[in-house]
């Protein structure tokens, strides 16, 4: 398969399409990053009232507030602050926490692996379960067959998809932690501590994704070209795996990307249930403590994560579907 993808780039005529695609995508990424950075910068300035006063509390002496404002550069004109902010950002400086006094970059560095781990495993699990399940269900229920299986699948997936991850987390804590006592329910320790957070993150998206894969596969099975494949008298597994699935996946990837982004965001809630030492618990604590530099930094990291997911989706789509590099202009 690597051979085939290399071939795509060297094909005459496609070269231009790929370059254009890369340039266009890069341009969009830069614009998105700029919007994100600017939004993170403006966030603090849009807060009504004085964020320093809000953070330090009404009882803090005026001198302290003034000193802190000066230290944070909040007295400079907005444009100057923006320039400083961008300069610091390029240098990797994200400011200092107002509560702990630690550099924000250090806090993020400490917390990021925990969040990445739980989100990564959850995504892998969701994909590994949903795609085969969706495909099998599509095959079983195509053309109005297997009504009972369809009903069972649809109702289960609807319910599972409707349970938000933090509720599922609470339920899992109750069943496995409190009731059965099988796995740890708080903190990040051994591999078994991953079980519940990963499960609570993965189940909902897996249910949604399985439904999407099924619907898309059913749609593809109706397509004209499947009739062509059948007219070639290829075996059924060939039809489903080699022809229907790749096409169903191209349609699934876009939505899958959105789910993956949502999963990144879902860590915020799940980490709070499991006292997971990641970015999600950090951002909530910082919001409640009005520790704005930390909030700003973590928002940036989450934002970049989402943009990375989007980029990965577009690249995957371009590799899987040769038309997509041309189509989107």
């Amino acid at each position, binding site marked *: 398969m690597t051979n085939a993808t290399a071939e795509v780039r060297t*094909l*005459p005529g496609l070269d231009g399409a790929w370059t254009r695609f890369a340039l266009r995508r890069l341009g969009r990424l830069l*614009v*998105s990053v700029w*919007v994100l950075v600017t*939004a993170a910068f403006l*966030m603090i300035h849009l*807060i009504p009232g004085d964020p320093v006063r809000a953070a330090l509390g009404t009882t803090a002496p005026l001198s302290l507030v003034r000193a802190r404002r000066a230290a944070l550069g909040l007295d400079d004109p907005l444009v100057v602050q923006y320039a400083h902010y961008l300069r610091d950002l390029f240098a990797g400086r994200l400011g200092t926490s107002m509560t702990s006094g630690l550099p924000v970059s250090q806090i993020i560095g400490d917390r990021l692996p925990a969040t990445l781990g739980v989100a990564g495993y959850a995504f892998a699990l969701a994909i590994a379960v949903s795609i085969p399940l969706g495909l099998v269900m599509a095959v079983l229920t195509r*053309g*109005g067959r297997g009504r009972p299986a369809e009903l069972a699948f649809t109702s289960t997936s*609807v*319910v599972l998809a*409707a349970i*938000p991850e933090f*509720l599922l987390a*609470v*339920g899992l*804590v*109750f069943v496995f932690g*409190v009731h059965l006592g099988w796995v740890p329910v708080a903190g990040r320790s051994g591999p078994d501590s991953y079980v519940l957070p990963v499960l609570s993150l993965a189940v909902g998206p897996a249910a949604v994704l399985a439904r999407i894969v099924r619907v898309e596969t059913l749609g593809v099975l109706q*397509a*004209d*070209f499947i*009739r*062509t494949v*059948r*007219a*070639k*008298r*290829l*075996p059924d597994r*060939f039809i489903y795996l080699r*022809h229907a699935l*790749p*096409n169903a996946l*191209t349609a699934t990837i876009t939505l899958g990307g*959105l789910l993956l*982004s*949502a999963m*990144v*965001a*879902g860590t*915020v*809630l799940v980490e*709070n*249930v499991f006292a997971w030492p990641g970015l999600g618990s950090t*951002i*909530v604590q910082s*919001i*409640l403590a009005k520790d704005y530099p930390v*909030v700003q930094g973590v*928002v940036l990291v989450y*934002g970049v994560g*989402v*943009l990375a997911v*989007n980029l990965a989706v577009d690249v995957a789509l371009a590799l899987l*579907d*040769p*038309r997509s590099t*041309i189509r989107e202009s």
Partner: protein
Amino acid sequence: MSSRLRSRWAGVVRTPVGMSATALLAAVLLLAVLAPVLWSAKANAVHTDQIMQGSSAAHWMGTDNLGRDLFYRVLVATRLSVELALLATVIGVVAGLLLGTASVSLGARAGRFVTAVVNIAVAFPGLLLALFFAVIFGTGTKGAVLAIGLAIAPGFARLTHTLVATIAGRDFVAAARIAGVSRIRLLVRHVLPNVGEPLVVNATIAAGGALLAFSGLSFLGIGVRAPDYDWGRLLGDGLNGIYVHPAGALAPGVAVVVAGLAFNLFGEAIAKGIGLRTPLAGERRPSSAPAYETPARPAPAGEDPVLVVEGLRVDFPGAGGPVTPVRDVAFALRRGEAAGIVGESGAGKSLTALAIAQLIEEPGQVHADRLEFLGENLLDTSARTKRHLLGTSLAMVFQDPMTSFNPIKRIGRQLAEVAEQHQGMNRRQALARAVDRLRAVRVPAPERRARQFPHEFSGGMRQRAMISMGLMGTPALIVADEPTTALDVTVQRQVLSLLRSIRAADDVALLLISHDITVVGQVCDRVLVMYAGRVVEDLPTAELLTHARHPYTRALLAAVPDMTTDRDRPLAVIPGRPIDPANVPAGCAFAPRCAFADERCTRSDPALVPDDEGRRVACWNADLTAGQPVAAAQRGRTTSQGTAGDE
């Protein structure tokens, strides 16, 4: 209009899912209104002597850390939870509508800018946006409502934009513009009514999402603050005590899920009800398979027929009993013979082709008295034998070459698959064969072409590639279903002449399905005219103009203008409209549109009977028409006016 709309929505409510979703949603809303009125006092009563108790007769769900009854607190919290969710939804929907219609209201340039911003925002998950706005607006109820509302907005804006753009691109909007309809009226009368339903559905589902999101924020401590309480906050409080007192966490959790489901299911039920609704075209009565006095026999095909079909029938389940779009079709094809099937949409010609190729899928059912291909009975051959036989000896060409190739696989691979499967070639050999076959149908630069994807081919080249796919084996029969309908006339000619040359070179039989009698005339020796699922006439193409006897065939020939049509006279027309396969009249199906129909025609269906020359016709009055020239047959009784009533 309003009554039609009402009946649609009533129909939604009547489905099992719709009914339960409606009941559930009604219960939630009712509870939201009544619970605080009825049980506020109980929910807020502090019992310092009953702190953190488990469930008991007095307190079903136990009590919290101030000894307040949790069951009543969950019930009373319904009001705030639902209220805030709806408020946030309203904010989100209004903001989304304003942003989504920006291209209409603000003009193209500003609209593009808004769309670009929305497209960036929509990539970010709602929870992240909500957190972002929560920082700006501050924690607490007001901040959370605004945050969630604004987090909903981008998604809704995008949906609105897409829907509006789709409708605005339709011809009826263009027509209204030409007719001088103003922009505002266009939006109000044409665009909004056509996008309203999906927007309502999505707003309902968004309300469910807002409910869940709100409980999430409150759970984190960012949403509702004490002393107010919603389900999220009850849940957050409950989690702290989950070891001693699980009900405190589970009860609000269940409430959130049930309410969220109620909104979601209601929305989806509406969506499904709307989407699956087909326009009601009058009452449908069950159509029973009519009996024939004598079943149709294929015209003798001589020695060694490639294909013999007798009593072919295709059934599909329909709303009012099975529908039979193909009935009692019989014919045979000699080696190297080319026959065309002609008919209007709904005549059953494509289904006939698919049935012969064994490509009708469930729930469709194929029945036949005889269906033999190269002497093999396709009705009771083992799947394995049949697969090999059809895979190597039967070639199919479909109408639309764009959609008939797998869009994400290279043309060469799609051809090579056949040889790998049926001739046991390896990848390299199969690809070489594919290139060879592409060359055989005169695709220029076949090596390069084999490495390209279908969208890099022009329509005519794609259809050549499709034909060459059939030539990967050694076909004895090519079934071509409207192979040139999607092509331009000059390209159409190339493809037809290619089919003709293949047929001549390898003595391949050809079954060509087309709505265009000219196309059939260009390629085929024989033409089978189908109407309402039956073959009504079968005769040599050379004799179409001289010996056609069925009134339908003759009318069809006269109704289509060609390069010799008299321009000073109106065209002959066939009154009425083509038959709906679900609603075939008794007797001869063509009788309601036929100039020669008499009482016998409406009573019983004529059989397809051969004459001495081997021509076959299914008409009681075939002899009446025989003497007249074709073009005059229908012309006398028609004018351009007055025949449209039941067209």
